[in-house]
């Protein structure tokens, strides 16, 4: 029988709004927790800063609070929530990070994160050393936080495919496909507002989003709900109410 992980990590950088793209991640974390896994929901606030200042230094604290409060409002236990700046400045973490980075080629690190780094996507933004270190921290966090399973979006999979084999012991992973946006193919925090649905959306807002984008509706009806319920027909209410409840951990 498959063993459930002891500690699961999911990290999210507080760059823009807490959006609906996180619904499958959050729901899956609840499933892990229901099987006894310890959950670490990492508010990777310094990642947003290191990644070409997606989050300005002065905004880190405010955005972190917004993210934490949103997750708490959605019923996430406080004990799950950790911020990177709770440990990034500790001697143990810093020393470990520096030791770890000796094994990572700067170029290979950058290439592994091409689908997520702002500087890789925008030709007018200079690649900085922060890009390299942001990715190095993301890999080292797995070791430092002593998790045996890491969850991320598929866009970050290459980072872990590159980095996880360099860590010991081996770490399992779950990569989730990106949620479609309401207008575009994917939903990201840095997108314009009309492409984003907030994670704390009411059922009526979810239903309205379904009406705007059939791709969005199909993704959540055919992927998110079956993933979180185990079967596509396991919910007796409408899809928008089922999603609303699953996000909040309600039966």
């Amino acid at each position: 029988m498959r063993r459930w992980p002891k500690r699961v990590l999911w990290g999210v950088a507080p760059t823009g709004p807490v959006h609906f793209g996180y619904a499958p991640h959050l729901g899956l974390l609840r499933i892990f927790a229901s099987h006894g896994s310890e959950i670490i929901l990492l508010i990777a606030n310094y990642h947003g800063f290191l990644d070409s200042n997606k989050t300005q230094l002065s905004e880190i604290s405010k955005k972190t609070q917004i993210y934490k409060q949103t997750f708490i409002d959605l019923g996430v236990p406080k004990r799950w929530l950790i911020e990177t700046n709770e440990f990034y400045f500790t001697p143990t973490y810093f020393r470990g990070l520096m030791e770890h980075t000796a094994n990572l080629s700067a170029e290979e690190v950058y290439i592994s994160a091409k689908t997520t780094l702002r500087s890789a996507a925008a030709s007018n933004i200079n690649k900085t050393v922060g890009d390299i270190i942001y990715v190095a921290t993301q890999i080292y966090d797995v070791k430092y936080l002593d998790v045996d399973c890491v969850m991320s979006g598929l866009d970050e999979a290459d980072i872990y495919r590159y980095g996880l084999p360099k860590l010991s012991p081996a770490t399992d992973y779950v990569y989730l496909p990106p949620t479609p946006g309401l207008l575009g193919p994917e939903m990201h925090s840095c997108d314009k507002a009309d492409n984003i649905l907030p994670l704390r959306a009411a059922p009526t807002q979810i239903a309205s989003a379904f009406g705007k984008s059939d791709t969005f509706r199909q993704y959540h009806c055919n992927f998110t709900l079956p993933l979180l319920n185990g079967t596509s027909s396991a919910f007796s209410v409408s899809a928008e109410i089922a999603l609303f409840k699953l996000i909040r951990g309600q039966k």
Partner: protein
Amino acid sequence: MQTPGSKSDLTSMWGVAPIAPIHLGYDSLAVHQRALSGRGYKHILLMADIHAMMSNGLTWKDINSRRMYYEYYFTQICGIQSDCIYGSSFQTRPGYTEDLYFLLSQLPFEAVRDSKQAGDEKPTSAWVVYAIMQCLDIAHIAPKVDLIIAEPGQKRIYRLLDAMKEIKTIQANRPLIPGIFDISPSFEYVDYCHDIFGRPLSESTSNSRISVHDSPITLRRKISKMNAPEKQKKTGERINALLEHYKNSVFPWNPLVKVLAAGKDHDYTKYEDFELDYLSGAIHPNDARESLFNYLESRLREIQRGFEKGITNWIDLTRLQLPSDY
């Protein structure tokens, strides 16, 4: 009495990453630093332990033993008057790491890669941080560092200070790193000594440089192989290693140097006088080799006696000795 602005207010610094067993290639730097107190500087010896870990894949445990060994050698054996500060004692403070993350997020990758030695185009992630930390250290190790002692290969790294000053124009309102953008120390670049063949130390191996742990047999064999052209300071690209060892490894450590040549003792108190006699042919290389062996053997014996038990446990001394077929 000291007056404000006198040299006693000045601080100098040299950083070294404690990695490998120590050799006499450091002598030029050690001699230069011993003179700093006479010039009125309060000197800091930065034991760059985290840098050592980053650059060579050594564990923290490995570094612990090495840094004690380096500190002991330079302060107790070489007699460099200084405050020895471990990098880890301030580089892991939140204020330092916060400044570092800030700089990392602002400095263009290309600027940092350019600071790497030519020929090494694929730096590790650690290396790019290494260079920035080396510059940031200046702002954090002391209230103000006026003079940096370094070997010329470090010029590329310290050029990053200019790139850091560029940041000021776009982030002037940032409340962190007080004073970092005003860093403008002087630099004195001092070459490492060459190896026994007269080649740059960067091209040396443990077989071609004199370790402070060499046995008399190994030492004699290395001296016998030294590049020592008669009456010349160099041959082609290679410098006269015999002369250089007298200059950095004998004269600064002995008030009076005696060289037996053609059955006659020649006494010197200054290297320059010895060099003149050598270049004139009054001192033959073979005579100079013999005296060099005597002085270095005596010095190495003292050094080896000086190391406390335990400090050198991490070194495989047998591997440092010259192989019989070399």
